[in-house]
């Protein structure tokens, strides 16, 4: 799509959408939102960018292959799930820091789990769309 409006807009939209996705991710525990939606929004941001600038440009901008996010996310989720077992508690027990952090709120294993989900969904969606776009 060769539209100058879209190209200019996507330059500004990309960081904003990513910021929004992180916002959605972080508030997920208290308000509507969460890792799934956050990851999807972030993926859409890059899809939009690739529409405006072409896939090559987006890939260059992203630097790493989106597939890399998948194992990172999976590992993060798995670690946050297994971590309580080291302390002798059962799988998936929530661990929390007592003091709330400003803006984010309480930090606990659930948050890292959520971030893992975010990465996986982001990675999966972008991998699929990029490979499909390339193959067409």
């Amino acid at each position, binding site marked *: 799509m060769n539209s100058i409006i879209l190209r200019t807009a996507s330059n500004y939209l990309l960081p904003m959408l990513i910021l929004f996705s992180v916002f959605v991710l972080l508030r997920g525990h208290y308000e509507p939102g969460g890792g799934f939606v956050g990851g999807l929004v972030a993926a859409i941001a890059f899809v939009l960018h690739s529409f405006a600038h072409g896939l090559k440009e987006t890939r260059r901008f992203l630097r790493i292959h989106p597939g890399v996010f998948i194992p990172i996310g999976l590992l993060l*989720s798995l670690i946050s799930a297994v971590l309580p077992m080291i302390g002798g508690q059962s799988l998936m027990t929530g661990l*929390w820091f007592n003091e709330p952090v400003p803006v984010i709120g309480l930090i606990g294993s659930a948050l890292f789990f959520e971030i893992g989900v975010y990465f996986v969904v982001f990675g999966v969606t972008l991998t699929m769309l990029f490979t499909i776009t390339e193959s067409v």
Partner: protein
Amino acid sequence: MLIAVLSGILFALLFLFFRLQNGWLRFIPAFLPLSLLIYFSTWLPEVAAGKEILFKYTWIPAMGVNLDFKLDGLAMLFSLMITGIGTLVYIYAAAYLSDRSQIHKFFSCLSLFMAAMLGLVLSDNLLVLFIFWELTSISSFFLIGWNTKEEASRKSAVLALAITGGGGFLLLAGVLLMGNVGGSYSIQALTAASATLKQHGSYVLMLCFVFAGAFTKSAMFPFHFWLPGAMKAPTPVSAYLHSATMVKAGIYLLFRLSPVLGGEPLWNYTLMIVGGFTLLYAAFQSLFRTDLKGVLAYSTIAALGLIVLLIGIGTTESFLAAAVFILVHALYKAALFLCTGIIDHAVHSRDLTKLSGLRKIMMPVAIAAGIAALSSAGIPFTFGFIGKDLIYEATMQTGMLAIQLTGLVLIANVLLSYAGYVAGFRPFTGALPEAYADTTKPEFLLWGPPVLLAVLSLLFGFFPALSSPLVNAVVANAGGNPALPDLKLWHGFNLILLLSGVTVLGGVVLYLLRKPADSQVQFMDRFESFSTRSFFLRLAEGIKQISHYFTHKLQNGYLRNYMITIISFLLILLCWKLVKLIPHSIDFSAMTPVSMYDVVILVMMVSAIFVLIFTSSRLTSIISLSIVGYSICLLFVFYGAPDLAMTQFTIDTLTAVLFMLILLKLPPFLTLTNKAIKIRDAIISTIFGGVISMIAFLVLQEPTHKTISRFYADNAYSLAKGKNVVNVILVDFRGSDTLIEITVLTIAALGVYSMLKLKISSSEKE
């Protein structure tokens, strides 16, 4: 004890990985049955003293399935036979099998079989017994079909598996029934509850199932035909499975269940009739065989029939006779089989019309076979004489039936001793054909085992009291009177001795008068089409054709036909039930009121769906699909599901992108089906939609259970420190599900990636 039973299975796995090709290594497996034999022998004094040694291992206690092993007289008799004859067969097989590269697999199967057999006779739990029972069927399948390159061998393996497996299936039903009625699967507990079982209404059913299992395994008429077929197996297998052990499993079961189910007329007469008929039928059949193994197979069936008959009589004398005869038969029949194998190995023939004079090449084999034949005929100073005596003693004490039974056994015994002579003497006497003159002599490891068996036959024949303690313990286990005198060689001149003499003489006369000839086989083949074997084969063929027809009809390769079949069937099932439930009036007041924007969304959706169905443009269909998705997203917004709305929105956007990317590269829609088919499909799918609506509506009428969601609502904050309950469920309460879900997503991404990055090879293009 657990190790002793399971060691065979462990070694079966072990042998698979060690090729025992070079030289003496192949005799190593024989140490397994040998050490087991020694192990079981150490218990012999205690068992002979009448003790029952129990070993308990819990396995699935909740279902009453435990690895309880009981070593009593009966189990001991069989264990010693399994391990003792097993040791000889292992040694023999190592020398016998020519294809050394496969020998480790053979020992693997054989060890598995031995373990299964041990487990079968030792287990006190009926369900565990059943498992081992099936294991023997399975492992014997591999052993019978050992010559995988021969079609006949494969076919008879399948036949044997089908018959014994089918019987095993019925046995399972019987076991479950007994367990249900008796309240336990332990044989000991069931023996105590014997009266309850016998008075229960399903007693007849239990008997039918148990008999079906035992008769198929022990090759009773009309299921006998798998055993001659199974003679396609290598001779060590025939000797081990089909004379000494596996076919005796059914006998063992009947023995074991005698105190549980036995003592009723139904039990006794069924066993007597089936056993007696099989005895006579198979003994008669063995007259018309020229294949050495065929003769042995039919005489084995006859012997099994005789044992069943004896168990059926159900007196102390008959149990004693059966127990002794099991041992007698195992000793002489295994020896004869092994000798047959040696002949086959040396001159590559088992044809009785051709074999003769082999004593000149293999004197030790001739001696072993001769002694075994004498034992089979019941000549004094062999163990067979003792067995024959006891059998006549048992049949003569059956009161009203004494004359009939004794007569029947007498005729059958004459025929059997003829079969013994034919197998034991015919190949070795007479002149040696020139073709066999330069045959090499068999090695010691081949003729050693049968000679040892023959010596044992003689040993027990001279000193029958040696076997008394064990045999008496067996009788006690079967419910007979344990206080028996020791077995004696000489009972004085009486009727029994006369009968024994008649048997021996009759056999000799028959042997001298008859010569095996091919014409006799052809004579029998004329009746083949009436036999149960051909009936079963025709049945199997019929089933195959029916299933072929149905597979063709249903699996026609058209996806929509599958779907129409499935959905129509579902509709017929559901409509029949749902018609009765249609409500007469609908209470709208309890429902959420309809607002303006609800209606707008619904109208939008309905029109989008119809456009989607009728459009021929791909772009339109993608857009309509997106409209449907976004409308659902709006519904989620209105009805308190913001998380869902957000997810649905993003997913729909991405789906639209996906379709745009791919779909436009595919060919445009074509009108492929005619109107009539479209109308038929429309009717089916409308009814299906109606039924789904109906179900949804009926579900709505039921009160919803809020217990679980109440739990989440109450504890989301206190336990998981989150306020968005949906999110808390996803990442905390049901976090492991989510973990699996993202794994699934990863797999999907990998699938997409690999499918598109794979180069299409030229062969795929075809």
